[in-house]
């Protein structure tokens, strides 16, 4: 094994130590928040003022710049949570338990934003706020899954046992992700199909795409910031009895 690979492995092991992670998160969380906010501001401005109106949907299509990135995040965050949960189950890495549980509220928020913006978009387009259509229903179930994970994590007193139980639930719920992703394909749905594709040609006009890409990257960065900040808080709470946390609090006290 060469030196570089060794360094990466060492860094990985270091990151697992609570004080080291605390410094790492404190350093990078503002960057995630800041860059995310900046990109989202640019994306929203571009999407609202520089993109021409849609020939069919008029101006109301612009809500897609919030709806689509949130929808992607609602599923991506769940997948990431499940990955952390698997690592936590198999290798019992404490940090991964914390990270998995920090994912849940953020993912729930993205899911809620997706549902709300979709509902607002649905009113002028379909003439209804809500429809029991496969995609809408599965997204709602995804929200319940997030709430279940959060509820289970908070219901058990022992933090580590709670994280393991809630992580297990998250893993069980992964079965839902492909159903949401392909619900528009499998069932005859009111929700429109995929119009944007990473590989191959999108069916969306080229002028509409750049702000969307910016928004997608922006939400990802924002998520990184939020994840680090939440995980840091949980980490500090769990380690609150330790000397290094006391030292951390000392200068301010």
């Amino acid at each position, binding site marked *: 094994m060469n030196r570089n690979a060794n360094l990466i492995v060492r860094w990985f092991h270091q990151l697992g130590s609570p004080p080291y992670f605390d410094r790492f998160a404190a350093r990078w969380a503002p960057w995630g928040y800041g860059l995310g906010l900046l990109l989202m501001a640019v994306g929203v401005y571009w999407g609202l003022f520089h993109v021409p109106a849609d020939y069919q949907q008029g101006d109301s299509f612009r809500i897609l710049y919030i709806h689509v990135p949130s929808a992607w995040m609602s599923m991506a965050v769940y997948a990431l949570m499940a990955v952390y949960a698997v690592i936590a189950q198999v290798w019992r890495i404490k940090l991964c338990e914390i990270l998995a549980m920090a994912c849940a509220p953020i993912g729930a928020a993205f899911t809620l934003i997706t549902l709300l913006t979709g509902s607002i978009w649905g009113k002028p387009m379909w003439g209804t706020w809500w429809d029991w259509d496969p995609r809408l229903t599965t997204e709602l179930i995804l929200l319940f899954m997030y*709430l279940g994970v959060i509820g*289970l994590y908070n*219901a058990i007193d022992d933090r580590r046992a709670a994280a393991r*139980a809630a992580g*297990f*639930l998250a893993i069980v*719920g992964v079965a839902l992700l492909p*159903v949401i992703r392909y619900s528009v394909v499998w069932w005859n749905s009111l929700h429109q199909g995929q119009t944007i594709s990473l590989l191959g040609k999108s069916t969306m006009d080229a002028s509409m795409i750049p702000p969307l890409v910016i928004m997608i990257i922006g939400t990802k960065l924002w998520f990184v910031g939020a994840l680090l900040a939440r995980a840091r808080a949980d980490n500090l709470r769990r380690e609150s009895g330790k000397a290094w946390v006391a030292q951390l609090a000392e200068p301010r006290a």
Partner: protein
Amino acid sequence: MTHAISPGLKASARALFLRDLRLLWRRRGDALQPALFALLVVTLFALALGNDRATLAKSAGAVLWLASLLAGLLALDTLFRGDAEDGSLEQWMLAPVPLAWLVLVRTFMHWATTALPLLVAAPLLAELLHLPHSQLNVLLASLALGTPLLSLLGAVVAALTVGMRRSGILVALLALPLYVPVLVFGAGSVVQAAQGLDVTGALLMLGAGLVLALVLAPLAAAAAIRIALN
């Protein structure tokens, strides 16, 4: 040597089965509660919908499905709790047979005591709700395939919450999202039958789900029990 001492799969299943039956018989008043609850739910729905024959007939399939789902949900909490409290669940974990096997036997008992009476009573309840007779077979088939699936999914949730002193509303919050697909296909098949459509697809989906859950759910529930009792 050890082979002669340790009980096999069949013997352990039989022992657990007989023990559960005996416990059930000693408290036979409680055993009827899920069926009674379902009857009450059906009554409440019938009264709430206003005694209109056409409306009742249209919603009968959905009401019966919901009644069995809720009756099973109420009984979920007792699935492993008694054994967790008196320590037998720890003996399950130490037993020479796989924990998943014992979980499967117990889940079968749960289904046989909560869903099976309902299945037997379903034609009567369907008559109360004026379900058209042509749909009765579809309803019974979907319930027969769907309720074991509900019990198996519920076993995973019950196992996750077994470590808690009281789980209350949390069990419902965790179990209901997992129940949704079963309900969609189960109650959906009755609706399809009412529209004169072919129901084979929905029933096959339920059957496929049941086969998958029969294999995977006991393993998942066993893992969850290990996590909860640690």
